[in-house]
């Protein structure tokens, strides 16, 4: 039991996790072609492979800045009004101590409307956004967190990524 419980995490920690992504790389997120989104990655990002899964979400890193982009499967269509409250809850679950500021609208290059907001906590700042898919059956949630000195870089990265979000099934 000890060999499996400690051995695999130890072996995994010995293998380098981040894999650099070329600027302009396009990643697809979602369980299938009809329920998927595509986005474009800016320069300098690496993918944290152990925490990335094309069906559920990616974890990216650029220096101390961490970006997570998650597929959110809505339980039923028409849950868009609950997305903001859900975002608060998800933040409290995944990043204790981080709070969401005043939300404001955001729009992707494809014309999809979502919501975004500044997040801050002890020693970290960043931005979060959530954009529902046209099918209203899923949404894409983006969270960028980094030290306060990287505030502008975080916001720029999030803004570029959210604008690049594309829902191929809607074209």
């Amino acid at each position, binding site marked *: *039991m000890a060999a*499996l*419980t*400690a*051995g*695999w*995490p*130890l*072996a*995994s920690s010995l*293998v*380098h*996790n981040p894999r650099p992504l070329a600027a302009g790389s396009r990643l697809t997120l979602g369980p299938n072609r009809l329920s998927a989104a595509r986005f474009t990655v800016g320069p300098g990002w690496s*993918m944290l*492979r*152990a925490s*990335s*899964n*094309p*069906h*559920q979400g*990616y974890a990216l890193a650029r220096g101390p800045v961490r970006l997570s982009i998650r*597929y*959110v*499967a*809505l*339980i039923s269509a028409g*849950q868009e009004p*609950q*997305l903001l*409250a*859900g*975002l608060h*809850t*998800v933040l*409290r*679950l*995944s990043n*204790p101590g981080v709070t969401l500021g005043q939300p404001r609208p955001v729009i992707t290059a494809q014309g999809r409307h979502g919501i975004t907001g500044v997040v801050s906590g002890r020693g970290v700042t960043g931005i979060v956004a*959530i954009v529902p898919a046209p099918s209203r059956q899923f*949404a894409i*949630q983006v969270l960028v967190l980094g030290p306060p000195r990287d505030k502008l870089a975080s916001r720029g990265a999030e803004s570029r990524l959210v604008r690049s979000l594309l829902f191929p099934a809607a074209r």
Partner: protein
Amino acid sequence: MTADVSILVVRVTAGAVCAFGAVVLAVAFFRYLVVLPAAAVQAVAAELPLLAIGFSVLRRLRPVRPPDLAWSAAALIFGGTAAAGCALLANQGLGGLWAKAAGPSFASNWSAALSAPLNEEILKVCGVVMVLLAAPQVIRGPLDGMIIGAITGLGFQAAENVTYGLNAVALSGATDPGRAVWNSMLYRVSTGGLGSHWTLTAVAGAGVGYLVRRGQDGVLPAAGCLLGAMGMHLLFDAPYVALAVKVAVNLVSAGTLYLALRRGYASRAQKLLTGLETAGAITPAEAAAVISRRRRRRLAQRATPGAERDLLLTRQRELLALVDAAAP
């Protein structure tokens, strides 16, 4: 080291491993209890009927008499704490290795199928081994191993259902936590529940029983059972296979093994009882009643309460011990 000290060491170790697993699970899901206490309680409470019914039914599947209640409960707890908690860490580690070595795309499809069978089947069958080492009288043959294995698997299944239910909250954007937990539980119990962990560990546990009964000659069947359970698990987690097929394969595999073992048990028990009856050690009525729970109960009810009934119950217990010793 004397046998008593060895057994004590095993029991303390098992308790420590269960505590460790419980802490791992608590740390991983503690935030849900703080942020969404109602959903967390709901996720746990929804498993209680499954646990109660499953525990009762699985124990009754052992012919003649159910396995010891305390050790059955120990197996259930081991599956739900030690095995589930350790599996969480082991699967994260091996899953991470798959993602790094073969890429996230490959890992998203195959990581579960290639990690869980290896980690979880070994961790769960450790529960059967722990019961065997801590209370050797509980597992005397493959049928005992199978029942204790199924109960260990049930505990694991319930713990996994809770973790999946809570994960479903985040995966659905926490838009309706109560419904996310409920949907996840319904899906896991109604669709895959019939062919999941309890069937897998039942098969692996039978292997432990073969080792007990046959010694070195049991190594091959034991390895076969463990590999069989891993194969069933791999199929269950594999992409591109219909869930109905997965459930049917696991249910039929475990069911066939159970029926074969049960028939063997009944045949050995009958042979023993016939021998005792022929030798005049027991009456035909006792021979007919001893391997049937209902007939034993009926005989006891007919006996006059007090000394006569006590004597009958003592006699039944002695005969059951004889049958269990000869037929495992």
